[in-house]
């Protein structure tokens, strides 16, 4: 990603995070909301890291950089929110919801297929591939729960239904991250820029979208 792209993504994440912090104190905005806001904040820090590194003229793209951890951290926050807080409410572990659990596996599998060209590329060094593997692990986990909670029938008093727009946004963010990495590996600068901008847009809107979902549910 270029300096401008990183700065735009950082700004988008910052706005999303500030919006989230301003809503923290409101009644009914629980831990789930906090985890997602932290995820956006973590992603924002990653873009800030890459922007600062490029600005300082010391950015190396051939080796693992700490900024990559922010993507892993972001999706782990999203994973934690869905796995640790929402899944117990949405899924009763019964046979009736089994098909949704199986269909949801499509998301991590598609992610893996999208990432495969980057993993097989010889232009990516070993340290980058190890970093990618860690990111992919969390990204696949988060996308599984995002898709599951997007399609699962609502058995918990409307919460799942209200959170569908948020889960769709989170799923889009995951796909865009993978696509951006794969395109970057093969030097598709133009497409990478478009995907980077789309990622910024999703990063900007994910917290307001979730906030609307929570408000709807509380009402």
């Amino acid at each position, binding site marked *: 990603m270029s300096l401008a792209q990183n700065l735009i993504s950082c700004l988008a994440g910052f706005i999303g995070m500030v919006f989230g912090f301003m809503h923290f104190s409101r009644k009914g905005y629980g831990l789930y909301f906090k985890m997602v806001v932290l995820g956006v904040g973590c992603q924002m820090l990653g873009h800030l*890291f890459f922007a600062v590194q490029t600005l*300082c003229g*010391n950015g190396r793209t051939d*080796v693992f950089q*700490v900024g990559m951890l922010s993507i*892993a951290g972001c999706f782990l926050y999203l994973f934690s929110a869905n796995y*640790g807080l929402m899944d117990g409410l949405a899924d009763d572990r019964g046979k009736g919801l089994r098909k949704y659990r199986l269909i949801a596996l499509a998301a991590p599998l598609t992610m893996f297929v999208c990432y495969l060209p980057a993993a097989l590329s010889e232009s990516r060094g070993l340290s980058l591939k190890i970093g990618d593997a860690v990111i992919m692990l969390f990204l696949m986990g988060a996308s599984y729960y995002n898709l599951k909670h997007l399609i699962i029938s609502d058995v918990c008093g409307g919460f799942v239904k209200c959170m569908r727009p948020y889960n769709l946004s989170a799923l889009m963010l995951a796909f865009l991250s993978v696509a951006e990495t794969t395109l970057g590996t093969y030097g598709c600068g133009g497409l990478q820029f478009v995907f980077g901008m789309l990622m910024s847009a999703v990063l900007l809107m994910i917290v307001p979208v979730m906030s609307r979902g929570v408000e709807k549910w509380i009402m």
Partner: protein
Amino acid sequence: MDNVNYIIFICIMVPLAMMLMILERKARVIITFMMVGITVCLFISEVNGLLMEVLGADMYYVTTAITPMTEELIKTLPILYYARFFTNDRESLVTASIAVGIGFAVLENMCILVGNAGNVSLLWALVRGFGSGMMHGLCTMFIGLMLATVCKKKKLFISSVFALWATAVVYHAIYNVLVQSDYKNAGFLLPTATFIPLAFIRLRQRRRDRERIRNENSGC
């Protein structure tokens, strides 16, 4: 001469350890975690030296990619242990985590001071204090604060720890990149710029709590 880091370590640790016996519980916890932070700093200096030898990487890469990870990892471990086995009380965890960060920064600053004794000034002290000292305190405080929030739910606790660590690592790395560049002033201002809104929120929270208690008392 013996390793100067160990000499400083003993000079700081001995009085703290001795006084620990006569301190009350709350103060004892703070001093204990400060001592943990100081010990972690000494340990990490050895680990970082070893990693530099093993990896053979250049100094810049090590300080911006490796040391933030190792330092934040080893600083997190005592807080994690405390949160998992002793308490999930928010105040205790935040206090303990700040003490670890400050203890770490104290020894780090002392060692750098002794290493550059001829070149330091009051400005250097202010920069180190407001820069790296605050940064270490903020990173561990963030982890302690969030651990207190997530440790009540076991499923969430396990999956969140890595995410919290990653956030602290990236923040630490941004600071390290900035202070080694032409924008080093921005680096020194970063922790203070992060601290001011946090302090403002905390002070407002305290005022609200005080008002609530006063209203409750007058209502009685």
